[in-house]
C-alpha cells in the first residue's frame, strides 16, 4: 500500500473536491423552482440537526452523559447569545472541569 498511498490520497482528494465544486460552478440555478430554492434554504438547519445528533453522544465512548453535559453547556451559552468562540471555549472548560469531579 505504501508505494501508491500518495496516489490513493490524490484519488480521495478528487472524489471529495468534485461534489464540493460541481453545484457551485456548473449548475445554473437562476431559474430554480421556488420550492427547490426553499428546500435548499432548509438544508443548513437540517444538516446541523443531523450533525449534532446522535454524534454528540459518542464523543466519549465510555459515557453518554459526557456528551450530554458538553452539549447542555453549549446550549445554555448559545441561548445567552454569547459569541460562538465563547460558546466553544465554555463547553470545553465545563467538560474539563467535569473530568476532575
Amino acid at each position, binding site marked *: 500500500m505504501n508505494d501508491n498511498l500518495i496516489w490513493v490520497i490524490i484519488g480521495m482528494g478528487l472524489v471529495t473536491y468534485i*461534489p464540493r465544486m460541481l453545484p457551485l460552478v456548473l449548475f445554473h440555478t437562476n431559474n430554480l423552482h421556488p420550492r427547490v430554492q426553499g428546500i*435548499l434554504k432548509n*438544508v443548513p438547519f*437540517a444538516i446541523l440537526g*443531523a450533525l449534532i445528533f446522535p454524534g454528540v453522544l459518542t464523543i466519549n465512548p465510555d459515557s453518554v452523559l459526557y456528551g450530554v453535559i458538553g452539549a447542555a453547556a453549549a446550549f445554555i451559552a448559545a441561548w445567552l*447569545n454569547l459569541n460562538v468562540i465563547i460558546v466553544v471555549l465554555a463547553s470545553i472548560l465545563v467538560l*474539563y472541569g467535569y473530568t476532575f469531579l
Partner: protein
Amino acid sequence: MLPSPAISSEQTHGLWKKGIQAGLPIAIGYMPVAFTFGLLAKAAGLSLFETVGMSIIVFAGASQYIALSMIAAASGAAELILTTFIMNIRHLLMSASLKERAEDEPKWLKAIYAFFITDETFSVAATSQEKKLTGSYLLGLGLAAYSSWVVFSGAGYVMGSGLPESLQASMGIALYAMFIALLVPAAKKSRKVIALAGTAAVLNSLFSFIPFLSGGWGIILSTLIAAVSIEFFVKGDERNE
C-alpha cells in the same frame, strides 16, 4: 436580480477579515481533531509527508479517519476512494445551497472556494449574517479552518501524545458546541428551524442503528427528508432572511 455594485478593495479587505474571524471557532474546533488524526496516522504507519499530504489534499475529517482505519486493515485503493466518495457526497447539497447565496463572481473563484466546503465552514457560512456570500469572505473562512487542519495534523504526528488526556477528551466537544452555537440563535427566532433540525436529528438517530446507513448516508438522507418534508408541511412560517 439587480446587478450588484462593484465591491471596492476596501470592502473586500473587510470581508476577508470577517471571514477569518468567522473561521476562528472552526480553527479551534479542528485543533484536537486534526491533532488526533496526526497521532493516529503515525500509529497506522503513514509517513509525515503522507499524513500532512492527506490533510492538504483531502481536507475532510471523517473520511481521513476512516481512511486510516481502512489502511490499517489493509483495504484496497478502490475501496478507500469509493468510501471517501460516499462519505462526501453530502457536500453536493451544501454546495448547491451555498450557490443560492453566493455573490455573482467568476467561476474560477467559486472553483477555489468550493475546495473549502466542510460541514463546519458550510454551517458557519450558511448561517452568517452576510446578505450575499462573497469569495473574499468564504476564502478567509476557509483558509482559517484549513490552516488549522493542516498545521495540527502535522503537529499531532510530530508531538505525539503530549497533551493531558483529559484535556484532549474535553476538546472533542468543540465542533458540536459550535454547531449548537450556530443553531440555537436561529431556532429561537423560527419554529421552522426547530422542526428542520429536530426532524433531521431524530431521523439520523434512527439511521445510526442501520449499519449501511450510518455516517455519510445517514446524514444525507435525514437532511433531505427533513428539508423536503418541512418545506411542504410548514407553510408561510416566518422567513427570517
